């Protein structure tokens, strides 16, 4: 089911895996032991299609990586020490989101089954943020088997759990693994896995340095099977109906997820709005706007406000994905990476537009100027699209750096200057009632920018998220 030959992985000059060979037959549970820093996580990330092998062959579930990554992802479930769950969604909503990303059919019924299995039916409507670490980890396992994958990868799933939670997790792991799935689980602690695995491989200095099978396993396994007679070694492959999750479907799922989470926490929108109002306040006192200057300066103030508030929103929106490992969760889904890009872009655009829709009337009242102008609406839409198209790309980069606190505006502002110029000019053209012919060059520039940068971001987004 898993076959790895002469796998080499280098990070720059540092070689982590040095010609590793590894094989797991169908239905076996292999524990991958090794001290911290031995490359277990790197190896598992390669199996999970999250990281590219430098050299060597990797086959998972009958498909080759990285070429057939999408097919592998369809048949793969991953549990890491991060939960890969959204804190501001309920247990049920998290499962629903991932179910849509994997194209699971009859999803509601499947979610009920999973919640029953992981013992969280009574907490289904509670936010994952309020869950204990153990409950989160159980739900993470539920997420991993939601689409009924053939192969399961567990990366130190016991990290941070107390004894009771560990025991509960072990019971669940045994149950999940007992359904004829192929399982690889890493651990730095032999005691943790000896009841579970049928084979132990030791990863050391970048190769499998030892391997041992556990004879007692078969007995235990057999007993476990007796308890649940419906499962067999060759499990029926049609328990869960899946269709290939469509491009638009995945985009829709991501946007729905972002909006649902924001509707509940409102932390991103309220932060952007408060910041936007503060920027306007600061402009007011900094520029001492008398009515005449104000008329000229209004478009500039508006766009500077949108630009500053926008970076705040982009930063937070991506930080949410990164902090709890959710970005990995998205990347594990069998959808095109560009669907992730477009999904995030659309939700960022939605946040930006909501902020603009609130800021415009507030500004109108505060400065006693009428900003309701259909031309202005078009400019704001075009400008926001371009800003968010580049901003989403660059914020996915910024959030993966050490200096993520400060990097986004520094990366973003120099390249969005043309948008800001064109948007300011076009806005002031409409507000001053200029002829359409005078405004059109700027509108055209905005359209050109939007089209070019959406296309470029679409093409390079892969490189930003894939290792």
């Amino acid at each position: 089911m898993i076959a790895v030959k002469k796998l080499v992985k280098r990070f720059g000059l540092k070689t982590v895996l040095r010609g590793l060979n590894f094989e797991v037959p169908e239905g076996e549970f292999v524990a991958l032991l090794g001290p911290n820093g031995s490359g277990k996580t790197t190896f598992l990330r390669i199996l999970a299609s999250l990281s590219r092998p430098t050299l060597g062959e990797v086959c998972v579930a009958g498909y080759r990586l990285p070429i057939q990554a999408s097919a592998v992802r369809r048949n793969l479930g991953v549990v890491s020490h991060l939960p890969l769950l959204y804190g501001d969604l309920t247990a049920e909503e998290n499962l629903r989101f991932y179910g849509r990303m994997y194209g699971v059919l009859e999803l509601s019924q499947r979610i009920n089954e999973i919640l029953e299995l992981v013992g969280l039916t009574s907490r289904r409507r509670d936010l994952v943020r309020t869950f204990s670490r153990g409950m989160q980890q159980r739900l993470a396992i539920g997420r991993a088997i939601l689409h009924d994958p053939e192969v399961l990868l567990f990366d130190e799933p016991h990290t941070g759990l107390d004894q009771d939670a560990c025991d509960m997790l072990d019971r669940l792991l045994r149950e999940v693994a007992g359904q004829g799935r192929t399982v690889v689980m890493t651990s730095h602690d032999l005691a943790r896995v000896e009841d579970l695995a049928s084979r132990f491989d030791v990863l050391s200095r970048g190769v499998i340095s030892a391997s041992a099978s556990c004879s007692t396993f078969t007995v235990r396994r057999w007993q476990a099977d007796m308890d649940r007679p419906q499962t067999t070694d060759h499990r029926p492959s049609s328990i869960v109906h899946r269709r290939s999750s469509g491009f638009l479907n995945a985009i829709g799922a991501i946007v729905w997820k972002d909006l649902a989470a924001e509707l509940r926490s409102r932390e991103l929108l309220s932060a952007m709005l408060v910041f936007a109002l503060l920027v306007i306040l600061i402009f007011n006192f900094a520029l001492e706007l008398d009515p005449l200057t104000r008329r000229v300066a209004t478009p500039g103030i508006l766009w500077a406000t949108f630009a500053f508030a926008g970076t705040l929103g982009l930063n937070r929106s991506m930080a949410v994905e990164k902090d709890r490992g959710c970005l990995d969760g998205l990347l594990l889904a069998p959808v095109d990476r560009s669907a992730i890009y477009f999904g995030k872009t659309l939700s960022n655009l939605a946040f930006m537009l909501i902020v603009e829709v609130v800021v415009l009337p507030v500004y109108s009242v505060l400065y006693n100027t009428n900003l309701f102008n259909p031309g202005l609406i078009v400019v704001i839409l075009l400008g926001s699209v371009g800003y968010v198209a580049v901003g989403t790309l660059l914020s996915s980069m910024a959030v993966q750096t050490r200096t993520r606190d400060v990097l986004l505006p520094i990366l973003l502002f120099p390249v969005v200057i043309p948008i800001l110029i064109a948007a300011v000019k076009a806005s002031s053209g409409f507000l001053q009632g200029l002829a359409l012919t005078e405004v059109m060059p700027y509108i055209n520039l905005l359209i050109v920018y939007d089209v070019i940068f959406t296309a470029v971001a679409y093409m390079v987004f892969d490189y930003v998220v894939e290792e």
Partner: protein
Amino acid sequence: MKPQPIILKVLNVISVLLFLAALGMVFLYAPLEATMNYVQKIFYFHIANAWVGMLGFIAAAVAGVVYLIKHDQKWDIIELAAVEISLVFFLIAIAAGSIWARPSWGAYWTWEPRLTTAAILEMVYISYLLLRQGIDDPDRRARFSAVYTLVGAISIPITFMSIRLFRTIHPVVIGTNSAASQGSFDMTSKMLATMFFALFTFSVIFVNLFWHRIRLGQLAQQVEQLKLEELQ
């Protein structure tokens, strides 16, 4: 580190000779311009530096694209070399342009499209360096740098267009004389010859420096490699 190949050594010598010749042409061969006098001499260096900056800018973008296709660390080194050279030459071009523009504009700086675009390009490249500094993993650093070079390379022409639409008072050097009040002047054929010679000279200097900088990058990589081996 291998010693410098013969061609590079020859190139070193040619670069120095060409530079001396260009100096000679600028100050001895090219005629004095009527209104601006000696200040106009700066013009040749301004143009030549801007030209080399442009070359480096294009080289960086190309190296970025190649890196994204090949995933070979070599192209990251080339990209960084091109960016650094471009950064320095554009900075000189901007400074020279400011000095040259002082008498005609009455100020060291005007928000004129070419000058402003060059300044924004500098910002893009400084942001590029800050981005690199913020990433420890060399693979990711190379990937993100390449993507950012690409984004910058596409944004800069649009920036230029948008600022051009916004306002323009840059001297139109070759062409009509209508914008005389804004600092343009008539190019005599001697001036033209000097300009093209300066462009050629600086192109050679660019190739020479580029080569040296790439070798330096490779050297730095080897040092990193050695340190890593010592660690293990």
